[in-house]
């Protein structure tokens, strides 16, 4: 009996210490792709084939150590992005007039017959990114770093609040607004917080909806006039623009009135309000896209943002008022990064990305997959070659596609010489998720 328990405990200890395979290679269809999104358990991939203009969902099947891929057709459009951190939904931008959200379970079951469960028209862009936690998720746009929060209530997606700019303090203001930079860094946040926490949003919404309803009426009327030859497109546009300007003026007047009437705003001056409106108009304008992070991406836990600022890629934490504080400088202008999933302690430890490295032996540059440790500021090279952008699984494997091969790499082995423990080798999938 003693011997048996000794043998069992030995076997148990041995299986506990078993490593995941150091590098799994799975044949992958040859296609035009750059982005491969990987589910936290490494079991599913979203891939956009830009040549065929199609998005596929792949499942990594592990049949006793023999790996293969199962393909699911989807109705998703280019640059579909998963709702992190649990992949319950996938967003599909520029899809029938907005960003459509599909349930992953529907995609697996119904494939290209799956239908959208939610449509967003206000935030609709390629290269958007999504982070989330148990309370919901946030979608961040590429061009202006505008973000929208959502909650999942009784299995349904619901938008929460208004569009908000992430990292307004990083905005390099254009010349005509540069004098507001110091006000923006000191007082913008204060006014923004008061406005965000007040009932203004609802009241202003009503004012604006009524005003823009008139714009819609004018537009519809215009359409009829053009059709019957009684009006021109130019006249029509002028009318619509004039009415829209009236709406904007009405917005400003209403906001000022509401602020004046609110006791919480007693220490906010008229000048503060003017500055707030000027900056608000700029932050939501087309021009703003030239003055902020390039290649931005939101972390999976929505607490960080990364992008190229100045000459290099930097990682920021998002604090109060959505102000951003620089935490890391990768000292190189890299590809768009991908964040690791937060650990059980809530830490986001790494980013992975593509960059160039100089090979001293061949005297030429090579494309490499890299990992940057956000705590130690150390960089590790995971693979060399022309590959897709890389992504993490929750247990910190790295997955990327290189020509016709899907690569699943134990990042710990490459970085520290240790290995990721296999806790779920018998199940389907490319290994195991870390403790949830």
């Amino acid at each position, binding site marked *: 009996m003693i011997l048996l328990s000794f043998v069992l405990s030995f076997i148990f200890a041995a299986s506990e210490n078993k490593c995941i395979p150091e590098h799994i290679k799975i044949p992958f269809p040859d*296609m*035009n*792709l*750059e982005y491969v999104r990987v589910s936290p358990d490494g079991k599913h991939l979203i891939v*956009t084939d*830009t*040549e*065929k*203009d199609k998005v596929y969902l792949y499942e990594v099947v592990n049949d006793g150590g023999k790996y293969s891929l199962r393909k699911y057709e989807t109705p998703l459009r*280019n*640059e579909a992005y998963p709702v992190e951190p649990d992949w319950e939904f996938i967003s599909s931008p520029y899809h029938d007039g907005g960003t459509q959200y599909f349930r992953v379970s529907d995609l697996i079951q119904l494939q290209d017959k799956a239908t959208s469960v939610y449509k967003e028209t206000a935030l609709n862009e*390629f*290269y958007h990114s999504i982070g989330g936690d148990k309370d919901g998720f946030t979608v961040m746009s*590429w*061009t202006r770093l505008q973000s929208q929060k959502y909650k999942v209530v009784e299995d349904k997606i619901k938008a929460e609040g208004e569009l908000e700019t992430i990292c307004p303090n990083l905005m390099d203001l*254009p010349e005509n607004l540069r004098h507001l930079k110091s006000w923006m860094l000191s007082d913008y946040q204060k006014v923004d917080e008061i406005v965000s926490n007040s009932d203004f949003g609802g009241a202003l919404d009503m004012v604006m909806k009524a005003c823009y309803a008139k714009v819609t009426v004018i537009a519809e009327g215009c359409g009829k006039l053009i059709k019957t030859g009684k009006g021109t497109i130019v006249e029509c546009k002028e009318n619509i623009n004039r009415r829209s300007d009236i709406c904007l003026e009405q917005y400003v007047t209403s906001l000022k009135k509401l602020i004046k009437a609110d006791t919480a705003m007693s220490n906010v001056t008229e000048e503060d309000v003017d500055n707030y409106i000027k900056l608000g108009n700029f932050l939501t*304008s*087309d*021009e*703003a*896209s*030239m003055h902020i992070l*390039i*290649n931005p991406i939101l972390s999976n836990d929505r607490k960080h943002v990364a992008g*190229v600022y100045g*000459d*290099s890629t930097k990682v920021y934490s998002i604090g109060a008022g959505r102000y951003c504080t620089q935490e890391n400088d990768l*000292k*190189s*202008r*890299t*590809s*768009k990064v991908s964040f690791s999933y937060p650990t059980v302690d809530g830490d986001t430890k790494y980013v992975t990305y*593509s*960059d*160039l*490295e*100089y*090979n*001293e*032996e061949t*005297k*030429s*540059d*090579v*494309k490499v997959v890299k990992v940057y440790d956000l705590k130690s500021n150390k*960089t590790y*090279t995971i693979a*060399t070659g*022309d590959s897709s952008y890389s992504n993490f699984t929750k247990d910190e494997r790295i997955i990327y596609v290189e020509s016709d091969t899907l690569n699943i790499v134990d990042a710990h082995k490459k970085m520290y010489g240790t290995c990721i423990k296999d806790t779920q080798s018998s199940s389907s999938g490319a290994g195991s998720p870390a403790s949830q």
Partner: protein
Amino acid sequence: MQLLMVVTFFAHASGEKCSNEINKLLQKHQSKGEWTQLSSTDGDIVKRSPTSNIGEWVQIINRKSGDKVSIIKPDSMTDYTVDTSCMVKKEVSSHHFLNAKFEKNKKDFFSDQDLKLKMKKNKLGLIYVWSPKFIYSVKEFSAIKKTAESLGYSFHAVMAADDNPEKLNSSSFSHISKDFRRRNASLELLLQKSDLHSPTMFIYKNNKWSAKPLVGVFTKKALEQELKKYL
């Protein structure tokens, strides 16, 4: 790699000491001193700067055993090894920094020579590096071309070096003409990481770069405002 010539210089500076020798080399090769940093596969820090000559860059690798200054050209490389006593050793090789595949079928590739011709021929221009893998660079192609041309820019597009021209058969790419499907073989563009993300745009005026590369897609109004700066 064919060794053409080895010349040795002697210098007598000391200390961080060899900065005089290094600065002389940088000056001689007209370094612009606009340094960017990358790693080497050996773990060294590599610093690079463009020079006043399109398609020629300087590179410095700092090592304990001494620094190495290299002059990179599309078809040759000159290495100056500066040892701890500031002795400078020069080595020139007919090394092709870019993949040798660019040397075959030259008409399929966009070289530094092509870039220089464009910059000489047009006073003001925009080079648009796109990739079929980055759908934004394909979908926004016509809009950006139109915006640039409406402001008087000469527009030219180049496909990223590693993309496969045989995979452009779908209608998604039909709006991109053959001339704009030549693959990027320009050292000048590639050393500015033109292919790491698409689109990457380069603006030139009077035979010189006017701005740092513009990475990504911008709204029409924002791009117009940016391009108007250089008119």
